[in-house]
Every structure is written in structure tokens, then in C-alpha cells.
């Protein structure tokens, strides 16, 4: 008895500073593969009578041909069209009619589909997801409808929004050789040019069980869920192995400058962006904390300096992009009317060089650790979010339990690490500068 206590004490000392000491409770799940290659993760969590499904396909815009950009995102839309057993217009209604909610998202690396339903509708959610995994109608009617919807989305969210083109412009500047140089929204003309056969080929290549991870999370009995998963997904045939071509980015040797003139730009804006490291790299965690120090929240350095003290900008926000093969770090500042961009840049340069030279204070260090801890734990309290993260860890690292130690990796970052990555990555030669100018009044 005594021995155990001593042992426990030692253990506690040993893990101090780890997530358990901070109190994050590890998530317990089980996982297995169906014979067709579908990876299944079950995360029972009974605090509410709700069940969430996440289907994570390992396909994003970086899997597209450079003359067929926009395909992955287009498929996200097509997946709400019809299947063998679900008529057009019914997919969403089936879920919404029982009080549930559903959505989907496409990034450069993956496309995922989420559904949250009252627990007695688990089979309904699984049925729908299995239908569109293999029985989707990729036909002229659906393609034509979604062509219009996607074009409308591009117009509304990108072309007609001030700074809506920023993300594509930034990626074009930071990446020159890799498939990350374009973004999911893509170019509208490629969707128009593509034949139905091409859409079908894309579907049969990437929407296969061996390229997907299914998570069932929430209030269910494991045996029931396993049976339901097998009932609906078990008979879907395995697809061909996927050949993934990725062209690594060649290092940047001098600063890149882009000026964007758009009629709808209301205020001048400037962004800095640097290529960093892939998700999971040790430096990623230090860079994330550096983002918080620099531009997250009202007490961050850039907000305090540029927005409050010098009154140069309307707002300044961080850019942080963790990708499977690479990463981006940066910030975007919208200047106040009449303020010269050079002044904004001078203040940004000054704050960055201060960190490179002097590092950060103990208080700042503790603050960003606190904030990050709270963020991660808050997300861990949200079952749907955990479900997504589990599928993400599995797909990128084939190591689902990595999720439970994510906070540890942030807490392992030292003050010195933060200063070190600021010096290592935020250099002038590796920088992309993107400037939005305001149209001259006639």
C-alpha cells in the first residue's frame, strides 16, 4: 500500500507540466479497420444523448491536377446531391428533420463531413454517409446544379469580399513549386471544362473506404455501433491504392512582393507570410505560441502596439496554417484610412525584431501557455471536435492516441524556443509581402 503511494507521488512529480497535471482528461477510444480498408474509431461518451459522425477523406486541393483546381471542394458540394437511395434535395433534410445538423469542409489536405444527431438516429447518419461514400450519383444534373452553387460561393466569399482573394494570393506567393500554391476554391473555369468522366474518376479514386476514416463519437453502445458500421460500410468494395504525388517546395532565397489592386478594397492592408514546417514538427508548437504572443487577443504585442498605441490599424490578425507537408506563419493588418503602409510595416518589423532580439517575458510566456491549455481543454470537452481531431491524427500520423498528448507538446515549448523560431523563420529573405492598395479616386 505504502509503496503504491510513493510510486504515485513519484509519478505525479514525473508528469508535472504534462497535460495530465494540467488536468486534461485523456480521451478513451477504440479503433479498427474493416476489411475494405475503412479505418473506424469509436469514442463513446455518454454525457448527452447525442452522437456525432465524422468521415475524413484524405483528399484535398493538393491532390488536384494544376489544370483541374477546385475539384476537391467541388466534390464536397456534390456529396449533398443524390445517391442510389437518397433522392436529390433529401440528404440534408433527413438529418435536419430529426433535429440534427450537418456540414462539410475542404482544406488543402483533406475533406471531411460531419453529422450530429440525437442518439437514436445513429443508423440514419451512418446510412447517409455510407450511401455517399459509394453510391453517389455523379451525373450531369448534380454537377450542373453544383457548378452554379460553387460559382456563386466563389463570387460571394472570394471575389466580392474585400480581401477575399487574400488566401489564394498568399499561397501563390509562398509556394511556387508544390501543390500548395493553389487553394481549395480553385479556378472556376476548370470545373466548367471538366467532363463527367473526370468527376467520376475523381470520385472512384478518392472516395473509397481505404482512403477514409470514420469516427463515431458520443452516446452509443459499442456493439450496436460496430454492427451498424458493418451493416452499412462493410459491403463497400475497397478501392485501388492511391498514388500520391507531391512536389516538395524549393527553398526561397529572396523576398517576394505582391501588390493587389481591386476595386472593392476599402482600406489598405499588408500581410507578411513565411513558409514554416509541416504539422507535427517540433517547431510548429513554438510557432503556434509565437502567434499568440504576437497577434492573438487584445493583449498581444502587435494588437497593443499597432491598434491601441500607434493607432495605425483597424485590426491585425494572425495567420497560421499547419499542413501535412508544410506550413505558413504570418499576419494580416488592415490600416486605418490615410495611414501609409510603410508605417504599418515599420511597426510590425520593430515588434518582430524585438522578439528576435530579446525574446518574450515570463508573464507573456505563462499567458500563452494558459490560453493554449484552455483552448485545447475546451475543445476536448466538445465531443464533435474530439471526433474530428481523432480522425485527423489518424490520417496524418497513423497514431490516433497522439491526440491525448497534443497539449504536452505545447507545454514542452520553452521561452527560448519561441525566440529561436522567431529568428529562424521570420527572416526578410524568406518573407512574402502582400499589399492591398485602395483604388485611386477618379
Amino acid at each position, binding site marked *: 500500500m505504502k509503496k503504491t503511494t510513493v510510486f504515485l507521488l513519484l509519478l505525479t512529480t514525473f508528469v508535472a507540466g504534462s497535460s495530465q497535471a*494540467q*488536468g*486534461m*482528461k485523456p480521451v478513451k477510444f477504440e479503433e*479498427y*479497420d*474493416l*476489411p475494405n480498408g475503412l479505418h473506424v474509431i469509436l469514442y463513446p*461518451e455518454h*454525457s*448527452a*444523448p*447525442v452522437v456525432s459522425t465524422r468521415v475524413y477523406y484524405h483528399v484535398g486541393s493538393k491532390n488536384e491536377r494544376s489544370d483541374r483546381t477546385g475539384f476537391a471542394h467541388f466534390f464536397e458540394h456534390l456529396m449533398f446531391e443524390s445517391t*442510389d*437511395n437518397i433522392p436529390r434535395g433529401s440528404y440534408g*433534410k*433527413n438529418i*435536419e*428533420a*430529426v*433535429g*440534427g*445538423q450537418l456540414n462539410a469542409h475542404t482544406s488543402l489536405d483533406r475533406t471531411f463531413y460531419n453529422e*450530429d*444527431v*440525437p*442518439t*437514436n*438516429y*445513429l*443508423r*440514419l447518419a*451512418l*446510412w447517409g454517409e455510407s*450511401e455517399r461514400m459509394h*453510391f453517389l450519383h455523379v451525373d450531369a444534373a448534380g454537377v450542373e446544379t453544383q457548378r452554379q452553387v460553387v460559382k456563386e460561393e466563389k463570387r460571394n466569399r472570394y471575389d466580392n469580399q474585400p480581401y477575399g482573394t487574400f488566401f489564394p494570393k498568399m499561397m501563390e506567393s509562398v509556394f511556387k513549386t508544390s501543390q500548395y500554391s493553389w487553394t481549395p476554391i480553385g479556378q472556376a473555369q476548370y470545373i466548367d471544362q471538366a467532363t463527367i468522366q473526370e468527376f467520376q474518376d475523381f470520385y472512384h479514386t478518392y472516395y473509397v473506404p481505404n482512403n477514409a476514416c470514420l469516427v463515431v463519437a*458520443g*452516446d452509443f453502445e459499442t456493439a450496436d455501433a460496430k*454492427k451498424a458500421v*458493418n*451493416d*452499412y460500410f*462493410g*459491403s463497400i468494395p475497397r478501392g485501388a491504392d492511391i498514388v500520391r504525388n507531391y512536389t516538395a517546395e524549393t527553398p526561397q532565397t529572396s523576398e517576394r512582393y505582391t501588390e493587389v489592386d481591386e476595386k472593392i478594397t476599402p482600406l489598405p492592408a499588408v500581410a507578411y507570410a513565411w513558409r514554416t514546417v509541416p504539422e507535427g514538427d517540433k517547431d510548429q508548437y513554438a510557432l503556434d505560441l509565437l502567434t499568440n504572443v504576437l497577434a492573438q*487577443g*487584445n*493583449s498581444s504585442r502587435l494588437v497593443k502596439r499597432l491598434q491601441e498605441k500607434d493607432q495605425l490599424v483597424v485590426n491585425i490578425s494572425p495567420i497560421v496554417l499547419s499542413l501535412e507537408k508544410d506550413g505558413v506563419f504570418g499576419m494580416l493588418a488592415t490600416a486605418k484610412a490615410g495611414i501609409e503602409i510603410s508605417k504599418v510595416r515599420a511597426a510590425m518589423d520593430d515588434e518582430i525584431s524585438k522578439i528576435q532580439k530579446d525574446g518574450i517575458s515570463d*508573464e507573456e510566456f*505563462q*499567458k500563452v501557455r*494558459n*490560453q493554449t*491549455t*484552455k*483552448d485545447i*481543454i*475546451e475543445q*476536448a*470537452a466538445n*465531443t464533435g471536435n474530439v471526433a474530428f481531431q481523432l480522425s485527423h491524427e489518424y490520417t496524418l500520423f497513423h497514431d490516433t492516441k497522439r491526440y491525448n498528448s497534443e497539449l504536452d507538446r505545447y507545454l514542452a515549448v520553452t521561452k527560448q524556443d519561441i525566440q529561436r523560431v522567431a529568428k529562424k523563420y521570420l527572416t526578410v529573405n524568406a518573407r512574402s509581402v502582400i499589399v492591398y492598395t485602395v483604388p485611386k479616386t477618379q
Partner: protein
Amino acid sequence: MKKLSILFLLMLAFVSASIAQVDRSQKPAAGPVPKSAFPPFTETKLKNGLRVVIVENHKQPIVFFRTLILSGNAQDRQSVGAASTVSALLEKGTKTRSADDIAKKLDFYGAEIGAGSSVDDINVSINCMKKDLNDVLPIYSDVIKNPSFPKDEFDKYASRTLSGLKAAKQSPGELGRKMGRKLTYGLHPYGEIITEETVGKLTTEMLKDWHGVNFCADNAIIAVVGDVTEKEIMPMLEKYFGDWKKGARVQPIYPPLNETHGMTISLVNRPSSVQSSIRLQKLGLAATNPSFDKASLLMSIFAGNGTIGFQNRLFQNIREKHGYTYTPGGSLTTSLDRGIFVAVAEVRNAVTDSALDQMLLEYRRLSSEQVPAQELDFAKGLITGKYLMDLANPQLTSAKALSILEYGLPRDYYSTYATRISGFSAQDLQQVGQQVYSPNDLNIIVIGDASQVKAKLERFGKVNVYDLDLQPVKFLEEKLAPSAMTLDQVLQLMYKGLNKPALEKITSRQTEGERNLSLTGDSHKASLITIEAAPNKKYEKMDFGAPMVMESRNDGHHIYQYYPGGNGVVNPDEKFELARTIFNDALHLQDQGNTVKLLGVGNTPAGEAYVLDVTKGNIEHEKWYISKENGYIVRKSFLSGDEPLTSDYSDFRPVDGIPYPFHEETHGAADMSLQVSSIKHNITVDEKLFLKK
């Protein structure tokens, strides 16, 4: 090891192959409805009377607090806007901490305070890591107990409120909400409206007083949701809230509410709106009313009740079937005293009346018919489903637990919610529909361009026009389009419509019919006889049933009136009426003493019409509307005297070849209608009828 996993895979393949194929063509049926899992909660108290509700949730080490002050906007009384301002300024400084200190400290722990007010209460919430409780709770309790309401922060907030009010005057949603509250609640404290004037009157002293009276331990409840046990959290609450002064439970005393009775149409004139925002509104139910859940289910069927649904009747009808609007919606609000029923749709100007027709039709179905079984099942599935989904959100759960205490709902109100809803029958709902959604008791509020939509609305009843300050507009400046015809051409058109050659041969006329007079919502019927003779004599008798008989005798010089208690009284305001009375006046508009001008083209319920400005005997001022289509006089506005009146004419039928309107609707000082049953020409007139008895 490797071998084992291969074996395992093979086994799995075998197992899956052996399972019979599931029928994919069938949408899977629902599993049994989960036993409603509303989390158990503990209710306890601090020594100073502060009530505490604890909902344990040990998923992750975070804790959420929501403090409810049991006084809200309805307690503002003499200091309108105090409650909402108090809630907004809590974290802007306390007796010992500046706004900056508070913000910095909370940011350090990643904690954020949220606060807001409703008619019944103020809520103040925060969430933090369990390990930071002893750092965050001192700040959280300080902003609740000791706010200092610094003058500079107060001024900043007031100026933000003023610019918000300015913007709200252009927002159809805000205008509708305010107009609705004014009509539904009148002088009841729920009817409070914040204006530039009330903002100007508010002082920091008032806020301190308001806070002093209402922010007391025994007038508050604190809910704790998260990774704590009662044993852990109570000492902390005692430490940080134990010294909160006791006051007295502030019992809200609300004056009785007037039932929404009859139909009103209010048009808030927002010139050059391209859309009308139509709002049906009436008094709803108190949260504790036993019919509340049934009325609420019915509301979901009607208009979705607070969520955008695609299956509710308004959506199906006015969006899907008619395409009048993008997203109609509605709700039945929850409050201590009676809340409101409201349904809203934004529609194009041109379809304002057609959309209102459909909204009224759907509204009336709530009381006139039973909900079909399939539709009812669907609605129950949606509501219970949403209820179950909400249980995944601890913040919502805390608000629900608090509402049990705040409103005095049964303790098992939420744990039995899903089963209770599932048990309601179509008969139950119709019964409640008849009580709560009575078909002809409704305030109709339209926010739109009066010049475009007022005429369209007039067929629903008298339209009261308001300006953007929600003040009544007595007479609306009409926007008229220029006329392509000259005055002379319009008069010719009118003569054609009147069949002038036939009319010129008429020298006397007897009209009989039924008049409907509505006064303060009650309607009175009378039989009416009018006898007119050239050049300007008129006899009129209205019989409401003995002894309520009214006579009026106009001999061309005076008007004598007879009614119970009045025998031959001369109408004191007869000058306008005398000037107005000209036999076959349409043929005499250009006689000496009268003038007629063409103003332009306007809208009437009968369509586009040329508008004539008419004066008779130099004092009586009228506007006549000549239908573009057929030359009929479809409307007259009588503008002289204190109370303008407008009459709309319809149901034209020929009598001896002369088209007469057999129906007349009059709005203004009085609302009345006339349905003519017969018209006779060139009768034998007893001249004595026009003379004093």
C-alpha cells in the same frame, strides 16, 4: 504478432460476410427515444441566501458559471435602460480594479465575461480552467458585487447606444420589434423602449441605485456547470460570494395585461423600402402556463419557433409555394409574465398583400383545423430531437436549470420534456390553438414604404401609419406619379364611368342598405335609408334597432339631427357637410365656387387611379380617385375638419344603366362599411323629410 493480426482480419471478413445485407433502399428507422437525460442538478444555498445550482460535468477540467439576477429591464421603472446598461458596464471597473486590470487579468487565464439583460433578469457568465478557480472567481465576484460604473465608460457606452439607436431606425427588424412591443404591452413594463430621450436621462447615479437594489445575494441564483463537486465548490463560493450583501428579493409586480383584442394594422412608413417586413404579433403565454408547451409545438408547426426550418407552414407556403420571401420565421417567447407570439416575413413590395393573405390563412388554420398526423409526428420528432441535441451544450443546460428556479417550473419540467411533447394529440393542440391563436385577434405590423403598400393593406382594415419614431402620422403625404392625361381627359373618363348622359336625367334617389359601424373593436349593424334630391337636399335614417334610431335632415341650409336624447339638434360642425352635399356632385365639380385640379396617378385597393383635388363651396376639401381602368370613382378622401376620412368604393353594379358602387369601406375617425341593397331613381319625394320635424 503479425500473424495474429492477419488472422483477426480474416475473422472480421468472415463475420462481415456472414451478416445478411441490410436493406439500403430503406431509410433506417429511429431507435427508441432515449430516456430524456437531463442531467441531475443539486440545489443549495450560501449562508447569505444566495441560491446555488450545481450541474456536475466531469468531461474536462473546466467550470462554467452563470449568475442570474432576478431583476431585468422590467424593473427599470423611472430609469429606462438601467438594467441593460448595468449589465454592459459590470466589467468596466470595480471599486478596486480598473477596466484595464480586469481585462488583462482575465486574458491571462483565457477567461471571458459575458453579460446581458432580458425583461426578467440579468445574466453574468464566465468559464475557466478548474485550476484557475481561485484566480478567476475573485474577479468574477468583484464585478458582480462592486461595479463602480466609471463616468468615462458610461459616456462611451451611451454614445454607442445612441449610434445604435440611429441605425435601428433604418432597420426593419428593430422597428418591427419596437412597434410590436408597444402595441402588445402598452404601459406594462415589458413594453419599455429605449430612445434618445431615455438615454439622455440616464445617469451613473441611477445605475448605482439600480445595482444596489437589485444585485443582492437573495435576489440572485448562481449556476455552476463543470468539473466540480458540491463539496469542492461550496467553500469557494462561500469565500468569494459569502460577503455579498443581503437585500430583499425584489418581487416583480406586473400590472395586468390587456388581451390582444380585434385586429389592428400598423404601417411604419420607411420611405423607399423595396421590401415590406410583415409581422403578426399578439400576446403569448407566461412560461408557467400549462398550455405553454402545446402552444409552443403549434408555433413550430406554424413558423418554426425560433429556428429556421424548411418544413413549417409559413416556409412551405410563402417561400416554397409562392416564392414571396427567403426565410420567414416566428417564435413564442418565454418570460415570467406573458410573452409574445410573433411571425415575420420580409417580402417584395408588390406581394405585400398577397403574402399577408397567406400568413393570415396559415395563422387561422391553427385554430380552425387539426394538425394532420404525419405533420404532427414530424414536428414532434424535430422538437424532441433538438431538445436532445441541446443537452450536449452545458451552457444551455445551466440556463435551463436556472429557468426552473426563476420561473417556478416543475422540477421535472425538462427531464419529462421529450415524453410530454410526444404525448400531445392533434385535439390537444387545436384546443390550445383556439385559446391562444384566436383567428381575429392579432396586431399586423408592416414596415415598408407607405406610398407603395398602404393601399394594398387597406383591404384588410384601417391602416394606422407611423413614422420612424413610431409616432402616429395623421395624414400621409402621397407619392404620386405624373399623369399622361390632362384634367379634361380625366373628367371625360370619369363621365364615361358615371354614364353622364343617363345621370343627368336623375333628380332624386333613394338608397337602402346595411351599415356596419365598428367602435373600439365591437361592431354595430344598422339598416340605412338615404333620400337625396336636387340641388342639395338629403335625408338619412340609420336604424340600429329601437330605440337606437338616428335621423338626419338636410334642407340645404341646416342639418337637424334626431337620436335618443337629441331632438332636432343642429349639427354644430355642419359647414363642411353642407358644402359637401351637392346632388350628383360629380357633374358639378367645375361649377362656380368649386374647383378641381389633377394631382397625378396614385394607388388604391382598386388599382391605379387619377387623383383629383376637389374643393366645394371654397371650404370642403376632398381627393377623388378615378380608376384608370374604367373611370369609376373608387376612392374619396374627405380632408376637411379634424379627422380625415377615406372611403373606398367597390362592387359596381348598373342601375338604369348607371354604375353605382354597392360596397363602401370607410376608414379614419370612424371605421364603417356600407352594403347597398337597392337604389331607386326619380322617386316621389316627400319634401317634409328634409325639413325640421
